[in-house]
């Protein structure tokens, strides 16, 4: 009975999940704040601040110029207003654009210099023990056997990358995984070639601001014909108050390579909203494949809509080579406001893009999220599966574009957008754009909106589950297809998050 044995592994995961959910008992899990002495640049943004950030990172002149040009463009742009989002005007001059732990002032020569409070932070973030030890600089940690699967971690604390694990082992494979500030110094030829080549400096308001003021982020290069020996991961943490976080991630998958990249985000509970505007660029060459998974759990604000992260993110993958492939998977449960459209440019022939998304909004959260599939090459394929869940007084919008260019012959897209409403004070919206300019391609789009089925609820309750348990179970079922697209560790976390995010949504 091989089937049953398979079942054990799978069921085992879910068991842990259920236990974890119960142990969390409600409140936002990551709402603590670490008291660390911080160094701030003055509030506001101007060319001097841009120079200061560049200077703090020891950047070469070309990088400083690049940033200043971005800033000049940003000043001419208006904040976009087309999304179905409603939030008080952001005063971009009332933010800190640079903050970093004082203990980082002198970059640690070894990880021993890392502030113990930072390490405490990793622990709370649930970073695996071995990675914690490596981040903590424990002697010989790199050589210790890792428990379970290895995951290399780059941790970004407020604006600064504080440490990357497994660098040595990755180096052996030829993989470069480091902070982007380090990459600018160590691998300028790669950064120069690719930075801004997928998300141009003037792409949009938030991306342009990011180009000017990004302080750090992760850099990945996978050499040709290399399968990255472990999953790569970045944990983003906003800690300091009134501080915008602007990280920049650049991933290059050279010909025939493969990498799976995980991104997790958390932030402390605060009454005032905080700004986060990130840019992720992915370049995928011939026959290469990148999986990018996100569990976004920034602080969503309290049940009255106070505080929370404003999350404006530009993520784009450029499938340049033939038969290249990208898969975006996102679980968006956090943030007060989410503005995010991870996109795929399918340039290479037979390239493929996939987008799997769960967006959960509760209380006063608002999410306007989706994807763009731009088919340029022949025989390209894309698939979109979006599951939006709206509860409380939240608004949840799927916004997407599927575009078949005249030269994208014989291409395919399939889109499925489902929305679930829990309670009668929330909204669920679907705004798809479909553009088809050749007839050998086929585009199929389906969308549904409904509420949690009463029959299903009664059935679960007759079997003894309370309302919240029943809703969590049904919603996890509704989102199954997306959860299955996540790597195992993230799938567990995501299942918990579904349950936690929906607490207080029924009854």
């Amino acid at each position, binding site marked *: 009975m091989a089937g049953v044995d398979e*079942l054990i592994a799978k069921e085992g995961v879910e068991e842990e999940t259920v236990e974890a959910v119960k142990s969390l008992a409600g409140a936002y899990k990551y709402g603590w704040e670490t008291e660390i002495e911080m160094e701030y640049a003055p509030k506001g943004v101007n060319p001097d601040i841009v120079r200061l950030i560049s200077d703090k990172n020891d950047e070469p002149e070309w990088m400083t110029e690049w940033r200043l040009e971005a800033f000049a463009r940003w000043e001419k742009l208006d904040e976009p207003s087309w999304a179905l989002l409603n939030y008080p005007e952001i005063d971009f001059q009332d933010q800190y654009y640079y903050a970093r732990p004082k203990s980082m002032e002198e970059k640690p020569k070894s990880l021993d210099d890392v502030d113990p409070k930072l390490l405490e932070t990793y622990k709370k973030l649930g970073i695996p023990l071995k990675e914690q030890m490596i981040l903590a600089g424990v002697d010989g940690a790199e050589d210790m056997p890792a428990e379970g699967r290895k995951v290399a971690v780059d941790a970004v604390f407020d604006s600064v990358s504080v440490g990357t694990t497994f660098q040595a082992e990755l180096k052996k494979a030829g993989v470069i995984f480091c902070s982007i500030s380090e990459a600018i110094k160590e691998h300028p030829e790669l950064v120069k070639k690719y930075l801004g080549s997928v998300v141009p400096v003037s792409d949009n308001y938030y991306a342009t601001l990011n180009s000017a003021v990004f302080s750090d982020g992760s850099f990945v290069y996978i050499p040709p014909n290399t399968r990255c020996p472990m999953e790569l991961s970045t944990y983003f943490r906003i800690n300091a108050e009134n501080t915008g976080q602007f990280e920049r991630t650049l991933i290059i998958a050279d010909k025939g390579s493969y990498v799976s990249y995980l991104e997790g985000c958390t932030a402390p509970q605060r009454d005032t909203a905080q700004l986060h505007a990130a840019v992720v660029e992915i370049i995928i060459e011939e026959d290469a494949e990148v999986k990018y998974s996100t569990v976004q759990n920034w602080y969503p604000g309290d049940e009255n809509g106070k505080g929370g992260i404003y999350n404006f993110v530009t993520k784009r993958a450029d499938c340049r080579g033939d038969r290249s492939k990208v898969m975006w998977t996102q679980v968006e449960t956090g943030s007060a406001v989410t503005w995010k459209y991870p996109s795929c440019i399918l340039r290479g022939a037979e390239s493929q893009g996939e987008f799997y998304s769960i967006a959960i909004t509760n209380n006063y959260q608002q999410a306007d999220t989706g994807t763009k599939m731009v088919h340029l090459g022949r025989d390209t394929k894309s698939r979109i599966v979006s599951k939006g869940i709206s509860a409380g007084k939240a608004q949840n919008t799927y916004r997407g574009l599927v575009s078949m260019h005249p030269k994208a012959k014989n291409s395919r897209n399939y889109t499925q957008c489902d929305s679930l409403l829990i309670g009668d004070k929330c909204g669920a919206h679907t705004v798809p754009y479909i553009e088809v300019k050749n007839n050998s391609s086929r585009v199929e789009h389906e969308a549904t909106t409904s509420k949690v*089925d009463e029959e*299903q609820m*009664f059935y*679960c309750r007759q*079997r*003894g*589950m309370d309302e919240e348990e029943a809703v969590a179970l049904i919603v996890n079922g509704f989102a199954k297809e997306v959860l299955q697209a996540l790597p195992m560790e993230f799938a567990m976390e995501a299942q918990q998050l579904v349950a936690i995010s929906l607490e207080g949504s029924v009854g």
Partner: protein
Amino acid sequence: MLKINNLHVKLEEEDKQILKGVDLEVPAGKVHAIMGPNGSGKSTLSYVLSGRDGYEVTAGDATLDGEELLDMEPEERAAAGLFLAFQYPVEIPGVGNMTFLRTAVNAQRKARGEEEMSAADFLKFVRAKAKDLKIDADMLKRPVNVGFSGGEKKRNEILQMAMLEPKMCILDETDSGLDVDAMKLVSEGVNALRDEGRSFLVITHYQRLLDHIKPDVVHIMAAGRIVKSGGPELALEVEHNGYADILAEIDA
């Protein structure tokens, strides 16, 4: 075990009285059957007892081991030991049958202040029960009732019953949509659960199910009331003469 006293029920959204004074007592360890023509209120009785929305109790009460049932939420009734095998088991896409079962088992254990079952124990437990009902691993992995045949759905209901070990089981038209073999399988599952401490209320339109699940008492329900009660022979009488004769006899 189950005591129903002068139960009057109307539809919440319509001014339509469905149950008009049902009196019924099912002692521990007994199997009672309710038979009756379509529209007599049989299924309504099962829904009201298990707490489904849409009905309003206008008079009377129902107790399970002395506990007032009608004030409880559906999950509280389940934890108290009431189980309804649905006439039309609900499909829940995306939720694995196994996950569903474990969530239900552990929710009830928790509500009763018992320890939750470990993954390994649960698996052993479910496999043993599933085997008795000829439910294969594949059926356990599939989403709850999705793509199940009529017979599979009913077997799945009995599996849940076996796992949850309720003390009061209501079977709502469990025979509907089953062929002879499936009916036999389901009935064997039910009979295996018969026990001194467990009672059954078997709701059915036809006598044939009662050939397999032998009742202690048979009640005839018509127009929202129990109109006649008797031994198993009453079911045979219905089988031979239909409901019309009995109803005429009562009217007379």
